[in-house]
């Protein structure tokens, strides 16, 4: 690994002085390649904090354009960017924040056709998507590609966080939730609403877990689910065992290739 420049040492000095990071950890961060799924409520704080921390390569995938109603929580975008693709808007802010970061942008949605090619380019995947179809697809792709996945999700005042690495013997997302809910049983995405700060809280926790995985420090969330209730101001961790009957990662899987899930966001 090449040495850090004087400027990099100064930029990252407040974390380099942490014994758990040090110059060696900072070089690990610079070498890391992290894919962020979604440049929205969760993807925004993830991209900003990982970019600021000096993660060397960030991939950002999102097919949407910035809408005025996004700005309450998607802090990667500014008022002047309304109407521009989210990945372009994110690129501008990240380039201004930290020119060290090599940002790769994908102005498209994750699909069965593109997910394996994209995921295979990275060491770590952070899911900040807004629908079950993408979540199950990303979980399955990360399982097949043997990539660690850090999954964060939010709903109104509630958030969930888990680190997923079945390739190291831990449970996958389907061990936790075997199947997506059928259409009609999930509330309408737009009507459900979400507190902007909640997206920040969970996104930052995802970034925190990503840094821990890159540096191999602290306790991994690989066998726990963290549940956050913003109204009660309560964090709870529950056990997340490996499911011996998991349709994906068990010894007799039902799912052996990627499949599309169409889970619409309609109220029954």
């Amino acid at each position, binding site marked *: 690994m090449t040495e850090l420049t004087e400027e990099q040492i100064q930029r990252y000095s407040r974390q380099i002085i942490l014994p758990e990071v040090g110059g060696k950890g900072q070089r690990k961060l610079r070498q890391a390649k992290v894919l962020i*799924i*979604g*440049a*929205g*409520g*969760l*993807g925004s704080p993830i991209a900003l904090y990982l970019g600021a921390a000096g993660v060397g390569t960030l991939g950002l995938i*999102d097919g*949407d354009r910035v809408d005025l109603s996004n700005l309450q*929580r*998607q802090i990667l975008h500014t008022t002047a960017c309304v109407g521009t693709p989210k990945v372009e808007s994110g690129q501008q802010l990240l380039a201004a924040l930290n020119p060290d970061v090599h940002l790769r942008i994908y102005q498209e949605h994750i699909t069965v056709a593109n997910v394996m090619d994209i995921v295979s380019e990275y060491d770590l995947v952070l*899911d*900040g*998507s*807004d*629908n*079950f179809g993408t*979540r199950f697809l990303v979980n399955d792709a990360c399982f097949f590609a043997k990539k660690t996945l850090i999954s*964060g*999700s*939010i*709903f*109104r*005042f*509630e*958030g*969930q966080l888990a680190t997923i690495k079945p390739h190291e013997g831990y449970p996958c997302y389907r061990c*936790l*939730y*075997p*199947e*997506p*809910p059928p259409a009609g*049983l*999930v*509330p309408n*995405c*737009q009507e*459900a609403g*979400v507190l902007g700060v909640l*997206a920040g809280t969970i996104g930052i926790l995802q970034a925190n877990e990503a840094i821990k995985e890159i540096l191999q420090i602290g306790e991994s969330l690989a066998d726990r*689910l963290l*549940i956050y*209730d913003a*109204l*009660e101001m309560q964090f*709870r*961790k*529950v*056990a*997340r*065992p490996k*499911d011996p009957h998991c349709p994906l990662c068990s010894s007799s899987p039902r799912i052996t290739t990627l499949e599309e899930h169409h*889970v619409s966001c309609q109220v029954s």
Partner: protein
Amino acid sequence: MIKVRIPTPLRSMTGGKGEVESTGGTIQELIDNLDSSHPGLKDRLCDERGEVRRFINIYVNEEDIRFLTGKHTPLKDGDEVSIVPAIAGGSL
């Protein structure tokens, strides 16, 4: 008494309450009792065969009932039960 944590998506059925108290010797009995005091809750938690839906997890204290004895998992006074559905929001 058993404390039951109600997730945000189901609080419309508990008058907005995030925690309710109920009774029951097993998860199945608890769900039936919850449904009596909060009609319709069982339909949200269980499918037409009475099985807990595959995208909803129920924890007794911190253990997932799927890895205990499912809806027959015994409960005792003072247990805390959490209902935790899959949520998908991120970009929204």
